């Protein structure tokens, strides 16, 4: 019995068969989204459902783009995510670098504090954020969401960057300093250029977290022209029915930017996550 199982498991084709099945599961929502985005509204409500669009139409993609404020939503998402990611990564680079290379009394405690912060549920801080932003008169601004997004991934980014700089060859920094470079000069001339790809990968992770965020902009913003794409998807949820085909079209527009960033940085993300996040 066991030998028979081993024989099946060890067969050369087995991993491909298993991978094929699970991969199908993983990409099935993409397939369904891709097919539905080219169906007409009535075809999405047919029973039994059709798989390939019977009347292949580009109208849905067109309508989602031009009749709903999708371009505005995407622009808002991009602004919010890029600004918050930029702030997080700049502040996080220096903090992570200091915690890794110039340890001081209490720096381990600071590190522990960052780690603890990662266990705080973002959902639980929505209320205090809402009240503070209300008092600052920042509700219904993109800045409100940027504020929250900084909180959201800052601890993770510092932690990842610290782990990343731990592996940075110290000799490179020391030799630059021996050659007359100041410590700060060494950061800009040596560390940042050499570490750029790793920092970029971590920036992509922060960007994707920000892109994924729904509840904060949902609570903080009520004007259509300021909403990001995650909240914008609700544009297609009506009182009577949901425009599934247009939502799929919007979903495609929503996924493309973060998927592009992600696939471009995939190699570095994998390396960054596995070395920085987990190897302490």
């Amino acid at each position, binding site marked *: 019995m*066991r030998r028979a199982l081993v024989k099946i*498991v060890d067969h050369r084709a087995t*991993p*491909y068969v*298993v*991978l094929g099945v*699970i*991969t199908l*599961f*993983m990409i099935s929502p993409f397939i*369904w989204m891709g097919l539905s985005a080219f169906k007409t509204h009535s075809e*999405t*409500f047919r029973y039994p*459902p059709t*798989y390939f669009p019977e009347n292949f139409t580009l109208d849905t993609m067109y309508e989602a783009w031009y009749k709903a404020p999708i371009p505005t939503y995407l622009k808002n998402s991009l602004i919010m995510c890029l600004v918050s990611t930029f702030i997080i990564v700049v*502040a996080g680079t*220096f*903090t992570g670098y*200091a*915690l890794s*290379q*110039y*340890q*001081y*009394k209490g*720096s381990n405690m*600071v590190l522990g504090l960052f*780690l*603890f*912060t*990662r*266990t*705080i*549920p*973002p*959902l*639980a*801080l929505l*209320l*205090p*954020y809402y*009240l*503070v932003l209300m008092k600052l008169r920042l509700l219904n601004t993109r800045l409100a969401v940027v504020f929250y997004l900084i*909180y959201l991934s*800052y601890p993770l980014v510092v932690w990842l960057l610290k782990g990343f700089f731990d592996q940075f060859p110290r000799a490179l920094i020391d030799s630059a300093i021996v050659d007359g470079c100041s*410590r700060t000069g060494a950061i800009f001339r040596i560390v940042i250029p050499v570490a750029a790809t790793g920092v970029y990968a971590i920036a992509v992770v922060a960007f994707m977290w920000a*892109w994924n965020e*729904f*509840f904060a902009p949902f609570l903080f913003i009520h004007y259509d022209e300021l909403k990001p794409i*995650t909240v914008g998807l609700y544009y297609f949820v009506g009182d009577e029915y949901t425009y*599934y085909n247009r*939502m799929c079209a919007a979903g495609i527009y*929503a996924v493309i930017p*973060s998927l592009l*960033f*992600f696939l471009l940085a*995939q190699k570095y993300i994998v390396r960054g*996550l596995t070395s920085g996040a*987990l190897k*302490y």
Partner: protein
Amino acid sequence: MKLRNSGYGMVLSVPGLAILLLWVLIPFSYVFYISFLRYDNILPVIPTGLANYREVLKDPSLPIILIRTFIFSFGSTGLTLLTSVILAVCLNRIVRGSAFFRSLVVMPWAVPLILSGFLWAWMFHPSFGPISDLLMKVKLISEPLNIYKKPSMAMAGVIIADAWRRIPFLTIITLAGFQSIPPNLYEAAKVDGADSFHTFRHVSLPLASRPMLIGTLITLMFSFRSIDVIYSMTPGGGYAKSTYVLGAYLFDYMYEFLNFGLAASASVILIILTFAIGAFFIYYTLKKG
């Protein structure tokens, strides 16, 4: 005057620490403060001591909400872990097509959770979705499958939608764990007469256990505290409140009933329960390997 290295480190981390203080620690303390206030947007705001906590803890639906929260988070994490380990084992064994399969498998990572909920909600739709239709075509079921009218199936549905989005992360972490194992260990095990099950049980698992454990704890923490999928897939907690978890309860007090005091105390309870998982995460992360 030139700072010593330790002083330089402190100066460098000042902006970062300022952000930590202003952005995290202040809102974090503020939510505790609100939880001790009567803040229901009707009556004047006054301190009420532990009244909010008493009300939440006395809520007769709290036990079932907590049970659902545990079923959801452990179910999602269990499904994620199982799928990720199988995927990682397969990806680790193949050479040709490895990058291709890996790229496809990690794609859900780029999908916002809220969209994952919408997509799966429609895939599971009893009349217009493909899952019920396909199951009927292969004669596994005789009438349309309506997961939204059966509490346990609705829960399974949101678990699938949640796990789907979390599998890529854990797969990558587990795969990296497997790949860090020196190949000669497998050869040594083979020489000793171990078959694939033995090597998996006694070589792969123990040597990759640390990243897998930490990755699993991160996944567990995330699914314990996030409600995006539940919110978009089964609005309002679904039929018979079958997917109504602690996060949804908190969100309703804040957004539907505008009772900020109760919402804050529910937030604190969520913080404490998440920390019960987070403590293990911190412990294993700090433990030197």
